[in-house]
């Protein structure tokens, strides 16, 4: 029990936690086919306004064939299919993938060559899992709250 203060002091302190509070992102200025990168808790969050083509591509593949099976519907909010929000940190060793690159027009990690599709799902390369979806909800049709 005496060890507790000596170990928990290493966890994020009050100001770090406070700075990690939810943030709001205005989606209105993001044109179709565009994406932006915002930082939340020091992590880059990709917000992509996907085109019809990109959504179709993400939904066409058979889910069972994926390394980390997950449907595109499960990775976006219902009724907001065009918006993909993912944490832009490669699940392999934490590098930042580049948006709109790689053979699936999704994300490509320059470090060890992991390729993600337009839904942020791992398709090839050493990364074990899909890009995680951060907790977020739609405050209005053009605004999300991350966190």
């Amino acid at each position, binding site marked *: 029990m005496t060890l507790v203060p000596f*170990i928990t002091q*290493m*966890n*994020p*302190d009050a100001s*770090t936690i406070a700075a*990690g509070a939810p943030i709001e992102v205005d989606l209105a200025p993001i044109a179709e086919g565009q994406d932006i*990168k915002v*930082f939340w*808790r*020091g*992590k*880059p969050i990709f917000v992509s306004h996907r085109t019809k083509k990109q959504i179709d591509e993400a939904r066409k593949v058979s889910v069972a064939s994926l390394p980390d099976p997950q449907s595109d519907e499960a990775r976006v909010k219902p009724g907001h299919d065009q918006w993909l929000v993912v944490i832009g940190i490669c699940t*392999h*060793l*934490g*590098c*930042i993938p580049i948006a709109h690159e790689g053979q699936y027009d999704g994300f490509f*990690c*320059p*470090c*060890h*060559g992991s390729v993600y599709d337009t839904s942020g799902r791992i398709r090839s390369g*050493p990364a*074990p899992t899909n890009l995680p979806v951060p907790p977020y909800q739609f405050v209005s049709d053009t605004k999300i709250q991350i966190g």
Partner: protein
Amino acid sequence: MSGPSDYQPTNPALKWIERRLPILGLMHSSFVAYPTPRNLNYWWTFGAILSMMLGVQIITGVILAMHYTPHVDMAFKSVESIVRDVNYGWLLRNMHATGASMFFVAVYIHMFRGLYYGSYKEPREILWILGVIIYLLMKASGFMGYVLPWGQMSFWGATVITNLFSAIPYVGDSIVTLLWGGYSVGNPTLNRFFSLHYLLPFVIAGVVVLHVWALHVAGQNNPAGVEPKTEKDTVPFTPYATMKDAFGVSCFMLFFAWFIFYMPNYLGEADNYIPANPGVTPAHIVPEWYYLPFYAILRSIPNKLAGVVAMFGAILVLAFLPWLDTARTKSSKYRPLAKQFFWIFVVVCVLLGWLGAKPAEGIYVIAGRVLTFCYFAYFLIVLPLLSRIEKPRPVPNSIADDVLAKAGKSAPMVSTVIALAVAGALFAGSAPGALAAEGQAAPPSQQWSFAGPFGKFDRGAMQRGLKVYKEVCASCHGLSYIAFRNLADPGGPGFTVAQAAAFASEYKVKDGPNDAGDMFERPGRPADYFPSPFPNDNAARAANGGALPPDLSLITKARSYPRGFPMFVVDLFTQFQEQGPNYVSGLLQGYEEKPPAGFTLPEGSSYNKYFPGHAIKMPNPLSDGQVTYDDGSPATVAQYAKDVTTFLMWTAEPHMEARKKLGMQVFVFLILLTGLLYFTKKKIWADAH
């Protein structure tokens, strides 16, 4: 071995002390009278070399900590100000940074020596395990130290390595948060790494005391692997071992000084001269060369958790070595099969190191798996099996017999040293070679006045280069680490103090707030730094089509290109380190009007032969006649590129001339010292051989 000392001081003051605290007796029995096997070869001097390196690292480290600021916004800058402004700061920083590499060179030789001569066998198991603990602590300190300059490799190395712990099931993510003290690598991480990096060397020093204590209880192993039996088998530590160690240390210092004074960045990564940026990942994240074999093992296993377990297992398996190798013969000299497998194992380790620096794809992954298997097979299959099937040659009756038998023929030391030096160079050099396989044309090598051991900056070129910077580059690129006063520094462009002041006064510098609380502009003073063209990075990006024009202060050290094998080994001897200047000057002349067929140039970019990916946002900045020279030098792009690159090499390393000059003095001194020590040692040992 070191029984009660028979040391009897005659001086009454020493007697008085000795009766109350027998420290002199302890010293005497440990480092003077202590019997050491008379057949030790030079591989045994690495213990002394390591003690010296630990001392060097602690002393330089404590001094650096007096000038360093562990904060994400200031760490990079504080390291630069150590190198630029602190008296002899460049020397202390080079000693500490290359010293880390030298420490690992020495520890790897020390470990391989232990492996070859069976120094882990009964009764030295605890001695060996303490060594493994020291090695682990060294790796932890080395890693945390590398994070402190807060460059791109520091940041991303820290990210990748701390993420290893996320592979632990269930609690992995909580552990990583605990290590970070935040939600990503950030200021709390840097602060705690600094604290621990300061602490660990003293912990190492403590374990080293235990290591030496255990050594002095069990006694030193020796090349014959038979324990000393009579007086004839040993010689007193002083003067025999002390002189031999002093000579070994001196030789090693020559090797060390080569890096400090002539190749300070050879073992580092150019990317670490770019300040840490959490938003951009470098194309290849490569750890320091001494971690590469383990990094290769990590990456060769497709499962994340299994990879991490294998990596740590590769170190932990060493601790079990005394029980894995059950052969009774210690020294591989008398074990024909073990000797061959030992050398295969050395090659496996070097190759793993080379693979660790390669991108994890294609053939490299397969080779990595094969070699990882070989690594573990050596410990888990080969060594246990060998003790059962191998028929060792007879060992000498005593150490004295071994010495007598050898007196006739010359030892095969020289060839081994050369083989090991080449292997070491290959291994060390594999890190810079890491950036290969990009399909990129290397810029042509040029003649630079500042290259080589006697290189000096061409003052005329620097002054012209400053003019090119001021009239062309400065409209987009900052030079924020350079103050106007630096223009008058020795080894610089050769301005007088008055000229530097006049140059400064042409600039407008923002100052304030004044008494009314307003910011105001005033003419520059020598102490001011070159003002940056944009107020912040985002403004710079917005004005340049989304691309950030990098600050040029360090550009010639922050850019590099792969030299490939075998050039990087040759570079070690020719002191070639002008990749940065070659690249900068090549880039300035590498623009082409028409991209080659099949290359689609994105909107708003230009084609450049030497820019990675070829599409560069910076339009061709230089054209013939653009800048007027008043000293009659040709006003051509080639000349502009050469001049501005020379100037920028100086901004990246303002004390280069001092470094090379001091290097020459140190070398003359060390060569004389080494020679004297050699003959002293020879004289002392004359009757012992």
